[in-house]
């Protein structure tokens, strides 16, 4: 099993840390992982993206052209990465601020209104965990317990009291994700 994922959105949405938690979860499950961020001026106020690969085999290229899954969190990223999903692959997006919805018919499309859901929770910082939960509901490539273990590993100790609310976010995401389209 190899899952090649791109997560793309605005800097500050927690794109990179969501990727990091996913990568740590993979390690907890004895998988091979790679995490390759866009870095530099892109991150400051602009778009941020990260390529995460989880695999049973050793990962060859950390740089990819097309992906099994694209997790898209703003319009610029939709424009840039909709075409990068493999045929039959998954596009998961947050509808907040999206004016042009996915148009391809050969991919599976799911929607998660994470921005809206996070505003109903105790902390809007759960945004990226709601998205992660949605992804794991569609593709349960890592077990929830390993995600929690991954969270513990990637968060500094002083933030460990936030694990419970993050877990809550993941579970909320799993509940509210919606399927819009099956690949033709």
């Amino acid at each position, binding site marked *: 099993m190899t899952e090649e994922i791109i997560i793309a959105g605005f800097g500050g949405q927690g794109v990179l840390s969501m990727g*990091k938690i996913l*990568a*740590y979860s993979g*390690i907890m499950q004895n998988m*091979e*992982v*790679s*995490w*390759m*961020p866009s*870095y*530099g*001026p892109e991150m400051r106020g602009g778009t941020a993206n990260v390529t995460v690969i989880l695999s049973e085999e050793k*990962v*060859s*290229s*950390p*740089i*990819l*052209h*097309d992906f099994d899954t694209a997790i898209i969190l703003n319009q610029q990223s939709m424009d840039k990465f909709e075409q990068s999903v493999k045929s039959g692959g998954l596009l998961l997006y947050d509808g907040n601020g999206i004016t042009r919805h996915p148009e391809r018919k050969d991919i599976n499309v799911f929607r998660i209104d994470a921005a809206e859901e996070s505003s109903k929770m105790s902390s809007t910082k759960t945004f990226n965990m709601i998205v992660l939960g949605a992804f794991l509901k569609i593709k349960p490539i890592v077990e929830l317990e390993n995600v929690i273990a991954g969270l513990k*590993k*990637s968060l500094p100790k002083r933030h460990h009291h936030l694990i419970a609310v993050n877990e809550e976010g993941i579970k909320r995401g799993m509940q509210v994700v919606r399927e819009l389209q099956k690949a033709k």
Partner: protein
Amino acid sequence: MSELKLMKGNEAVAEAAIRAGADAYFGYPITPQSEVLEYLMSEQPEKRTGMIVLQAESEVAAINMVYGAAGTGKRVMTSSSSPGISLKQEGISYIAGAELPCLIVNVVRGGPGLGTIQPSQADYFQSTKGGGHGDYRLIVLAPASVQEMSDFVKLGFELAFKYRNPVLMLSDGVIGQMMEKVELFDQQPRLDYFDPAWTTTGKTDDRGRNIITSLDLDPYLMEKHNQMLQAKYRKIEELEVRVEEIMIEDAEYIFVAYGSSARISQKAVELARAKGIKAGLLRPKTLFPFPKRIISELADRVKGFLSVEMSAGQMVEDVRLAVNGKVWVEHFGRYGGVVHSPNEVLDALENLIEKK
């Protein structure tokens, strides 16, 4: 027990430096390698091993601190990215001339000039052909994973002391910034023995003065010194070549690539094989010494070579020299900070197969 961690390549370099028992790091921040210095500063290795970490006032100062400290026989290093490494070249030439061991890490970004902060591999010539003045060589290691960013720090110090020669680790923005699983090696002790034959640790009554210099005004003595250096470089060429071979046994076409381009080319090999094209990958782990003999022998049985690097074509010259006209050798690469994808690499090979 070794420890398993998820780390950035740059962080792995820093942690490995502490664990390799380095005595000192001197550096100056520059993207995309600043995490080396940041990690060292936050880790406070002076409390763990007594290792000194110092942010110098400039790259020029940092490399001269390395020069001075290396003269005392200490295990010392610096790191930077392309424009910063250019600034260090005078010092590197002096260190090579004075035959001192040290480790220099270059996390390459796009050039020329201030260039860009995105990944590149356009410092191959500078690293392998002598970026400073004079007839000298660095031992050049090319890590292709976060694991090797850690392992090659240890190897680099070993080789630097074995040959009393500066070792350069030629990485790039991809390997420096990406996170992977890394198995950290156990903590090594810092040095407590300093070879009295050359180190400047204070003269004792039973020996003459040790003088560290790269200057000799007598050209005949300088020629002799150069001959000795050349003999050392030939010995390194004979003994220290390291490569990784992937799917090479039945290959008809060989990608030659190092660092992140090797990872990307490995994926291109997988894609090519799925299409029935017999491609393989030769990945030099050492760029000096370059695997000339291995490539020359491969040239007797394959149809062609594609050198893949994020440059306008630098290593391809060494591949051509090794192949010596036996079969075709071409170059492919995006550059100036653009990273090629595995699909682009495969397309380049397919176009060549069709054309040749």
